[in-house]
C-alpha cells in the first residue's frame, strides 16, 4: 500500500503540489484525474523521487521512503511507466528489460514471466527499441517496469496515441496485475478509458487533491467531471 501524506513539491521556486494526500491500496487501480498542468505527472515524479520532496511523507508498506534518492526508491518496488514511454531508444528490447531486471536483481524467471505477458516482445528481443511500433513501445515500457516486480505501478497516460486493440491489451495486463495484488496509480486523459478499469478516482486541481470517489459513483456525476476536466 502506498500513501502520500501532505506532500509539497515543485520546480525551482514554483510550487506545483500543495499538501497532496493520496492512498493507493494493494489490489486497486486508483486513477488521478485533472486538467493539463494540475500536477498529475508531478505526483508520479514525486513518488519516484525524480522531484525532490519539499514537505510531507511517502510511505510504502509502512516504511517511509520520501527521503530516499530516486535510484534507491526504485529498489523498494516502485515501477514507473512514464508518459511518452521514455524507453532507452538505442538499446535493444532485451537490453531495456535487462535494465529493469537489474534494479532489484530479478531472476531469469521474472523475465520469462514478463515476456509471457507480451509475446510480441519475445519475437523482437534483438530489435532496437526505437524501431518498435507505438503499441509495442508501450508494451516494452510496461514490461520494463514489471521486471522490477513492483509493489506499486505508476502509469502515466499509457493509452496515449494507441489504437483500440492496443489499449485493450494494455488494459488486460493492468487488470491482471491488480488482481494479483499490485497497487496501481493511473493517470489518464480519456475518461472512458478510466471509468471502465478504475476502482477509485482522485481529482486533482492546481496541485491539490480535491475529492476521492469510487469509480462506480462517478458515472452518475457528469458535473464533477465537467468541473475538473472541463469537458
Amino acid at each position, binding site marked *: 500500500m502506498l500513501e502520500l501524506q501532505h506532500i509539497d513539491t515543485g520546480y525551482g521556486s514554483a510550487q506545483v503540489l500543495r499538501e497532496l494526500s493520496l492512498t493507493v491500496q494493494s489490489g486497486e487501480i486508483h486513477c488521478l484525474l485533472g486538467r493539463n498542468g494540475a500536477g498529475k505527472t508531478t505526483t508520479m515524479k514525486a513518488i519516484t523521487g525524480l522531484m525532490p520532496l519539499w514537505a510531507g511523507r511517502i510511505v510504502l508498506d509502512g516504511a517511509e521512503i520520501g527521503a530516499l534518492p530516486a*535510484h534507491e526508491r526504485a529498489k523498494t518496488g516502485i515501477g514507473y511507466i512514464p508518459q511518452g514511454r*521514455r524507453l532507452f531508444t*538505442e538499446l535493444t528490447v532485451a*537490453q531495456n528489460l535487462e535494465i529493469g531486471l537489474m534494479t532489484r536483481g530479478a531472476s531469469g524467471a521474472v523475465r520469462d514471466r514478463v515476456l509471457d505477458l507480451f509475446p510480441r516482445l519475445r519475437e523482437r528481443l534483438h530489435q532496437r527499441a526505437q524501431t518498435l511500433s507505438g503499441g509495442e513501445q508501450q508494451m516494452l515500457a510496461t514490461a520494463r517496469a514489471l521486471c*522490477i516486480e513492483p509493489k506499486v505501478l505508476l502509469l502515466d497516460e499509457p493509452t496515449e496515441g494507441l489504437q483500440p486493440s492496443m489499449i485493450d491489451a494494455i488494459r488486460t495486463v493492468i487488470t491482471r496485475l491488480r488482481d494479483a495484488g499490485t497497487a496501481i496509480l493511473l493517470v489518464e486523459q480519456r475518461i472512458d478509458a478510466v471509468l471502465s478499469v478504475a476502482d477509485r478516482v482522485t481529482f486533482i486541481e492546481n496541485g491539490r487533491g480535491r475529492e476521492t470517489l469510487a469509480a462506480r459513483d462517478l458515472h452518475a456525476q457528469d458535473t464533477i467531471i465537467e468541473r475538473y476536466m472541463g469537458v
Partner: protein
Amino acid sequence: MEFGPYLMLASLEGAVTAAVLALTAVGLSLVFGVMRVVNVAHGEFFMLGAVLAWWIATTMGGHPAAGFAAALIVAPILVGVIAAAADMTILKRVDYDPERTIVVTIGLLYIIQQLTLMTYGPEARPVEPPFNTRLALPWIEWGENGLGLYWPWGLSTTTYKLAVIGAAAVVLIGVWLLMTRTRIGLVMRATQLDREMAQAFGIPVERIYALVFGLGAALAALGAVLIVPIQQAHYLMGGDPLLLSFIVVIIGGLGSLPGTVVAAILIGMSDGIISVFFTPTLAKILATLLVALVLVFRPQGLFGARPA
C-alpha cells in the same frame, strides 16, 4: 629523401600522434556523451598522466621497463581517482549545468596546471622507453633490375612507436567492448540515453557519472604515459591535446565513439602529414578554423547523423 619515403615517414609519425590522440579524444567524447558536459580540464589530466609517469618511473629506478610498466598502470588509475573526486566534489555541485561546468573546469585547469608547476617545476623531463630498437624501413623503387627494395637513409621507426600504436588499438577495442558487451557499459549507455529513467530504474547516476569522468581522464592519462618516452613531460603540455581532442570530438560527431576514432586517425595523420609540407602553425590555423565552421554549419559533426 625523396617524396615517397618522406610521405611514408610522415604517415608513421602521424599514426603515433593519431593513436595517442584517439585515446585522449575518446576520453573526452565519453564524458561528453554520457554526461553532456564539456571538460575543459581534460588536457590537464593528460599532462598529469605524463608527469606522474615520470615521477613513478624515477621513483622506481631499476630497469626502465619496470618503471614504465608501473607508470602505465598506476598513473591512469591515480588520475582517474583524482578526476572522480573532482566530479563528486565540484561538478556534482553545479548540477552538471553545461555552461557552469565549462567555467569550473577552466578553474580546475588552472589549479592542476599551477599545482604541477609548484611541485614538479617548469622543466621538461623525459621518461626512458622500455624498449626502443630502431627499425630501418624499405622503400620500393624501379631500379636497373626492375622492381626492387632499398633502404633510404632516415626512413625508420622504432619498436616503441609501433608498440604505442598497438597498445592504443588494444585499449580502444577494450573500451568498445566495455561499452557494448558489459553490464556496466549497458548502465552507462542507459544513463546517457535518459538520465531520469535510469534513476527510476535504480541506476545510481551520480556514481556512474563519477566513474565516467574518472574513466575519461584515465584514458587521457594513459595516452600521455604512452607518449612521454617520445615527448617529454612538461606542465604546459596539456594545451595541444585539449585543442586537438576538441577538434576530433567535434569532427567525429559529439559523443559518438566510432566517429571519434575515425576523426582521431584523420586528424592525427593529417596533422603529421600537413606539418611536413606546411608549417605546423598554418596547419593548426586551418584546422581550428575548419572546426569552428563545422560547428557553425554542421553541428552534428562530419560523421554524425543529422537529428530528425
